[in-house]
């Protein structure tokens, strides 16, 4: 066997499997997105089997683009992904800087911090929406009630009572409405993914140039300017990577939306695809192609960045 054949042979199972995995379903999606294809239609039974004779051109794409749900799903996807990115990066940087130096019990704090990341998404959603955020039975409801009781008690107190009587009774928030359930998803995913950001920023902080920092201290730089002019620029690249990786993961967020929002109108692109796929396969496929395009925009930048470090 020649010097080249064997390595190719060893790689081929992985490459062939991934090639099939990528090409077959995706080309089917592409095909379905250009034909009329529905699962149930009594008046036009010919549309229920995929065939070139049902060619629709860009009709499905037009249908999807003019669909109110699609615009809403895109906006909602962007709201959810954008908010999660914003919070995870901010919290991630702050926490990473906080625990980067040694303190008693640092190992334990690290373990506590990373734990949420390993919780399965379905449990994450069930736990937050029921046990924590529920307006009546969850911790939120209990906390709001407790606070109200305290305020009511203080209204009768001498001297300061008049001040507390100005306070309104607090209302717990229901996180099962269309808009608020998006917030619930943001909260739970931020909780789960902040540890990921922390872990990556900490890894990066460990390679920070300590001599440069010491020199800055000698020059009289305070903690804030050290952070602003040394640490933050150093974190630029990891922040970009955290943002891109999370964007790709969260654009396909599914379990959380499904569990928190079923039937209440809150949706993102994967959820909308699932809804379309109950009957209108053409529309589901066209939406899928849009999702691929959206993910690719991010993926191209990310891959370029990974490529640069790959062979070092």
């Amino acid at each position, binding site marked *: 066997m020649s010097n*080249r054949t*064997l*390595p*190719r042979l*060893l790689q081929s*199972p992985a*490459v062939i499997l*991934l090639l099939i*995995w990528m090409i077959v*379903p*995706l080309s*089917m*999606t592409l095909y*379905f997105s250009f034909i009329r294809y529905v699962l149930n239609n009594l008046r036009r039974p010919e549309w229920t089997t995929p065939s070139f004779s049902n060619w629709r051109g860009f009709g499905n794409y037009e249908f999807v683009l003019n669909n109110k749900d699609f615009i809403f799903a895109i906006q909602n996807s962007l709201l959810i992904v954008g908010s999660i990115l914003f919070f995870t990066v901010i919290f991630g940087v702050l926490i990473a800087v*906080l625990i980067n*130096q040694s*303190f008693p*019990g640092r190992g334990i*704090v*690290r373990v*506590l*911090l*990373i*734990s*949420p990341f390993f*919780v*399965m998404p*379905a*449990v994450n959603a*069930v*736990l937050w929406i*029921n046990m*924590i955020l*529920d307006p*009546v039975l969850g911790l939120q409801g*209990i906390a709001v009630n407790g606070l109200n009781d305290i305020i009511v008690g203080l209204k009768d107190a001498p001297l300061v009572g008049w001040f507390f009587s100005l306070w309104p009774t607090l209302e717990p928030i229901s996180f099962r409405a269309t808009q608020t359930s998006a917030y619930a998803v943001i909260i739970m995913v931020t909780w789960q993914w*902040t540890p990921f950001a922390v*872990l990556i920023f900490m*890894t*990066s902080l460990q390679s920070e140039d300590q001599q440069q*920092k010491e020199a800055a*201290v000698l020059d009289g730089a305070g903690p804030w300017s050290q952070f602003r002019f040394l640490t933050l620029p150093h974190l630029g*690249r*990891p922040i970009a*990577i955290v943002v891109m*990786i999370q964007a790709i993961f969260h654009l396909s967020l*599914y*379990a959380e939306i499904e569990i928190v929002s*079923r039937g209440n109108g809150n949706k993102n692109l*994967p959820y909308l695809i*699932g809804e379309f*796929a109950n009957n209108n396969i053409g529309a589901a496929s066209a939406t*899928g192609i849009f*999702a691929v395009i*959206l*993910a690719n925009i*991010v993926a191209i930048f990310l891959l370029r960045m*990974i490529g640069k*470090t790959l*062979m070092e």
Partner: protein
Amino acid sequence: MAIVAQSTRYGKVTRTILAWAVGLLFFFPIFWLVLTSFKTDADAVKPEFLFFFTPTLENYLNMTENYDYWRFATNSIITSIFATVFTLAVGIPCAYAMAFNPSRATKDVLMWMLSTKMLPAAAVLYPMTFLTKNFLGIYDTHFLVIIVLSLINLPIVVWMLFTYFKEIPKDIIEAGKMDGVNTWGEIREILIPLAWGGIASTALLCFIFCWNEAYWTVRLTTTEAATLSKLIEGNRAPEGLFFGRLSAVSAAAVGPIVVLGWFCQKQLVQGLTFGAVK
């Protein structure tokens, strides 16, 4: 150590307290889940039993009766283990060839593999359902779940193994060749013992990802091959009736994995950033 000298004792105490507070805050929901799992369903929603209650094991003892827990758990264990083994079996030779016989295309092949990981799963939802249900007839089987889990984790596994193998000096492998060892022997006798740590942590991470997967395991199964993700997803909205028992089954589903996760924090950074952060 100018920085340490600069920070005062007061600052260090504040930092310690703050860091612990953040750690405990992030861990609190998990703690709460476990705590609730020891309450009866009735106690779980009563404010007066928030922290002080008579603990009971009832929820754990009744898991099988209430949710058929072990059937789903067995499915999760079977599919995750077999998917991990299969992924490694395909991934190790591939990463070996890439690391020790790189060609000009190696980098592009790796990048292409990673790019498959970035495709949104939902885009191919219907074709996958159609293919597996109507065409191949493997919908809702362990086989299907194992294959799908393997394929979605293969890029990360190849990538991680590649970075580990790259660190091994080529001379050692070459020396094996001189002694007349064949490729299979090289992998088994030299590579696997040398890269054992890396392979083990890759396997662990792959297992965790398989266990937690929540799109295909939910969409491509109904009963036969349904995993824990599907079980929890199916009991999403108990309206406060079953907080205790739902907590128990959830805690049982995530507990082992969270503990496993503690052991592979370091590899996680590598595995998830594709080595782009060092």
